[in-house]
């Protein structure tokens, strides 16, 4: 009888699974990054293409190489997390960055940012940002000469015409004693900024495209709304207070929201599952922290942009936040003295 031959599988319940996987999550994130990628191709052309492809290819290669030969385990590059790291790293550098610098960035991002901690899931800091900050500190000139969007730059690469980012213009201007209203004339208007027509890293320019991708991820429940919303609200409120105090010295909140890596950071970098807190409460604290740090660095710091630093600093606080932002227990009892 066939019953006798049955060799059943035994395991703990539950015996069914939601059928989501890391792979699925990662590819949805990549999908959400596509609009911004298209915008960057449209504005930066060839340079964006070269930098993006180099970054993804080298990130995937380093992940494979390290897992295969140094950690001696089965490579997991097909889960797509290295592709995302590569893509986000590319999004965080100017489109005229030399290829070798991109490769070095990817090596640092994957090698130091991710694999030294034990690979996906164990890293403390966002790998792409580790790579980016490494490049920014090592090659400040190359990392802060931003090609201007469109025009002849579409076919240029390292020889692209460069210009300052709006944030850079403001920072420099304030230092030279100009006032905000004067400086506002030197930068694109808000509508153009929203669409992405401004200088900057190749993936941070279009708030519109990033917003689309971000909302898609929130809708798909890949990311929680708490982090982006708390960052944006904090930045708006903090910058708003400063602007109200001295409109000549401090730019208005909308300017802060549309420029630099804020949108990219709040929807795609800060929300990285591995390096963000576990509970909604913790996520809100995390977002508020990032918001305050960003404005602080932008207004008073040495760098015109502070998103990467803000996120990395808050990454370091995540274990602490996790410890103090426990989810509310079902039927929590308030005991005296406990």
């Amino acid at each position, binding site marked *: 009888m*066939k*019953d006798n031959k*049955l060799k*059943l*599988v*035994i*395991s*703990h*319940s*539950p*015996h*069914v*699974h*939601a059928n*989501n*996987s*890391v792979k*699925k*999550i990662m590819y949805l994130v990549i999908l959400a990054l596509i609009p911004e990628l298209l915008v960057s191709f449209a504005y930066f052309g060839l340079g964006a293409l070269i930098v993006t492809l180099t970054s993804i290819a080298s990130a995937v290669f380093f992940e494979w190489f390290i897992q295969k030969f140094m950690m001696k385990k089965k490579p*997991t590059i097909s889960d797509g997390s290295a592709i995302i790291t590569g893509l986000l790293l590319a999004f965080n550098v100017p489109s005229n960055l030399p290829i070798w610098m991109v490769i070095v960035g990817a090596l640092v991002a994957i090698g130091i940012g991710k694999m030294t901690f*034990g*690979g*996906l*899931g*164990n890293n403390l800091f966002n790998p792409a940002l580790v790579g980016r900050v490494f490049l920014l500190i090592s090659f400040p000139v190359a990392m802060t000469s931003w090609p201007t969007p469109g025009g002849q730059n579409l076919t240029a690469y390292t020889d692209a015409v460069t210009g300052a980012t709006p944030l850079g213009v403001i920072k420099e201007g304030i230092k030279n004693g100009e006032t905000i209203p004067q400086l506002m004339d030197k930068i694109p208007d808000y509508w153009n900024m929203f669409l992405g027509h401004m200088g900057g890293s190749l993936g941070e320019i279009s708030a519109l495209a990033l917003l689309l991708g971000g909302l898609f991820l929130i809708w798909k429940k890949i990311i*929680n709304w708490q982090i982006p919303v708390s960052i944006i609200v904090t930045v708006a409120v903090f910058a708003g207070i400063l602007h109200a105090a001295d409109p000549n010295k401090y730019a208005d909140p909308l300017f802060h929201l549309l420029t630099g890596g804020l949108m990219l950071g709040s929807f795609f970098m800060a929300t990285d*599952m*591995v*390096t*963000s*807190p*576990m*509970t*909604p409460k913790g996520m809100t604290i995390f977002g508020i922290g990032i918001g305050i740090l960003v404005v602080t660095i932008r207004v008073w710091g040495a760098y015109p942009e502070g998103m990467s630093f803000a996120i990395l600093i808050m990454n370091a606080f995540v274990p602490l936040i996790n410890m103090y932002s*426990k*989810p*509310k*227990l*079902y*039927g*929590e*009892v308030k005991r005296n003295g406990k």
Partner: protein
Amino acid sequence: MVALKTFKKGGVHPADNKFSADKPFVKAPLPKMAIIHVTQHLGAPAKVLVKKGDKVKTGQLIAEASGFISANIHSSVTGKVMKIDNAIDASGYKKTAIFIRTDKEEVWEDGIDTSEDLVKDIPYSPQEIVEKVKKAGVVGMGGATFPTNVKLTPPPGKKAEYLIINGVECEPYLTVDHRTMLEKGHELMVGTKILMKALGVNQAIIGIENNKPDAIEYLTKISKEYEGISIQPLKMKYPQGGEKQLINAILGREVPSGGLPIDVGAVVQNVGTTVAVYKAVQKNMPLIERTVTVSGTNFSNPSNYIVRIGTPIKDLVEFAGGVPENTGKIIAGGPMTGKALSSLDAPIQKGTSGVIFFPDEAAHRKPYQDCIRCAKCVSVCPSGLEPYLLMTVTEKQMYDVARKNHITDCIECGSCSFICPTYRPLLDYIRLGKKTVMDQIRAERAQKQKK
């Protein structure tokens, strides 16, 4: 219309796969050899009253409750006690069981009313009801198998306000409660009235998920004949059938951590249990049969059966159509909380609500990876715990940390393992941690009592 009620914290949505929802109950044949375990309930094993060679009648008491939390066991067949020996049960361990070889002719124990007539009058006092329920060995038939009479005697100083009848059946595949509500509606209503009388409450609410519209409609219609019983449709979400989740969904109250439903004035009983109470009180019928769903994606004839307790699962499956080809896993109970069977020799017990087949391709666990801290387990946990953390600390045997993080509040619903994108065996470890911590707490308590 206002949004349907459901519980607030966490929850998941497994595909419900209720293939057998429109299949009426079929009586399964009597087993040739009934294997009746003496531990079919939470608590102490029942004390065996018969010996090898004894003749027993159907419904005869063969093992008696020992201790406060324990339940009587009755013979489900007429026949001869062949042996009292260890036999494997759904838990995968061998436990003491009474083997009874069935005679051709069925003889019922005296005083049992086997007719199908509805008896509506309840002439008994609350004490008499509790006594009858206890005598009949009724236990919670949703799966927890907690002795029902204990639930009907609230600890002194606590008073029940509401009786909640659990018709949620949030486990995928299972349809026995659904069919019971449709086919035994009046028995259910009278059973509810009996429980209300025993508890001294005026209000009973039957909670039903909205994937059973026919049951909601039918019960709403007939509930008008019975005073104080109302029907509450609920939004589908797993684990709504959990006692604490159901109370939260219907009453909006939260049972305090470490407490019992009675602490918020509620008593929850399963639909099947309520019908068993009806039979026990009105018909003197002990708990000797139960309803079982046999189903599965690769099973050709998913159906519902009324099965005598002690029937080997093998016999039932054979009657239902045999084990389908390429079966990789067989589950006793629902797929979220049920136990994978290691042997089909295990019998149907008081708590076995289903036999579910899984084809080989769906039977295997996927290899698991490191946690990616996506926090999905935290967001789906209906108890508000952090499963990722509890698993890690259990793995590292840091039980004190697990205890501090309320591992004992876990209801073992499996939502965390269900949702985890890296297939981590969260509940596997949490169960281990929970048990270890519970043992520690018990040991501490015992030590305190000594002092």
